[in-house]
């Protein structure tokens, strides 16, 4: 069942692999195709042939969309139950993102920042192998954004095997969260990679084809 996708090719040939523990920040000008690449990775882009992306079987994905994309007609508990978290675990997850006591609220009764954290709780509910974050700090005021960044840093430190791909256009995010940077530029967009792993100086970024 195809949903209407983009019109013309946004992405060029992009070749990259993501391993456990990779913390990637995907940078690039707005409109360059960062979200498109993220969607392509999880098979949401109808323009990208399924064989172009190889996902390890049984790989669990947690996707934090730009909008919360919780079901607005269901409470947070019900939203979490839909991804398999029982009441007890839902309460734990909500506590983890600082939303203790909000389980019976519906997403639209929450502020933008709270709803985004609730959506993050849903990402965690599936115990993801890969955490995909699409502009997680966009349109949050400074304190809220810092709070969320701290929260995500903490989550990553607690689960070192979890891979993360975070779309952002803020280099500050990149330096706090990432051990790898991916730059997307041009049209159709090309990917440039750079490793930030402490101690080991990475070879000069290559343009992969």
């Amino acid at each position: 069942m195809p949903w209407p996708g983009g019109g013309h090719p946004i992405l060029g040939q992009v070749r990259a692999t993501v391993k456990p523990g990779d913390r990637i920040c995907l940078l690039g000008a707005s409109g360059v195709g960062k979200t498109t690449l993220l969607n392509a990775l999880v098979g949401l882009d109808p323009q990208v042939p399924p064989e172009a992306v190889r996902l390890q079987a049984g790989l669990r994905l947690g996707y934090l969309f730009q909008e919360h994309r919780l079901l607005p007609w269901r409470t947070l508990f019900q939203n979490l139950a839909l991804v398999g978290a029982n009441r007890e675990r839902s309460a734990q997850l909500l506590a983890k993102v600082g939303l203790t006591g909000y389980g019976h609220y519906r997403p639209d009764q929450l502020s933008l920042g709270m709803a985004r954290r609730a959506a993050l709780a849903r990402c965690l509910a599936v115990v993801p192998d890969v955490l995909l974050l699409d502009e997680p700090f966009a349109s949050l005021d400074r304190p809220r954004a810092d709070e969320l960044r701290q929260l995500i840093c903490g989550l990553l430190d607690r689960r070192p095997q979890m891979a993360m791909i975070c779309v952002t256009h803020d280099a500050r995010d990149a330096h706090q969260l990432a051990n790898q940077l991916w730059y997307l530029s041009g049209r159709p967009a090309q990917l440039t990679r750079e490793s930030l792993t402490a101690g080991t100086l990475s070879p000069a970024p290559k343009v992969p084809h």
Partner: protein
Amino acid sequence: MTRGAPPRWAYWIALPVLIALWAGVAVLLQSTLLPSPLAVLATLAEAAGSGELWRHLGVTLYRVVVSFLLAMALGTLLGVWMGRSALANAVLDPVLVLFLNLPALVTIILLYVWLGLVEPAAILAVVINKVPNVAVTVREGARSLDGKLEQMARVYRFSGWQRCWHVWTPQLFPYLMAATRGGLALIWKIVLVVELLGRSEGIGFQLHMAFQVFDVATILAYSLAFIAVVQLIELGLLQPIERRASRWRRTEVSGA
């Protein structure tokens, strides 16, 4: 130009005026062809007392309910399918347009001719008349389903049932309600014609008998009884369902 709820009494003007007008003209004419409201009430009471009213009302209501449920089920399936698949829509749309424009009377006559004056023919005729309307309404809903939530449902591997019930149904609900409202109003009118043409019980049949002897009081009495029943369904069933299902919207407004 005032906004907000109009005063309660505003709802109690037009109908009493209409009834007063009717009573006045009836008194002036003094004809059996326009009985007074009181005469109609008396006829209604008599029909109710003899049990005739309830029997015919029951039969008609049963036909309305059965054909309504069938038409809603078929129309919803068709509408969702056509709204989600461009191919299905392209193939079926001409047929849909044809049936939308087919007069109810034609379907009824043809089915009576082909199947005989039997109950399935009666029900089927009503269903065929209603399915296209439901399908067109639900198709609009299916087309406007939120693609972003659909992506979410795919990433989080929602089952088919979860998608239908938790993601689609709440979005389709306003369209289903619109189809229900329009459906009830349309279906009971078609059921009366079906009964008039080929059944030997039901309100339509009673209207037919009354028409033969120009018994206007009976015609009005039965019509009013059925309008009352349909209003009861609206107030007692549809509005509570709607209130329940749209609770999440109201809290959204008050919470904003």
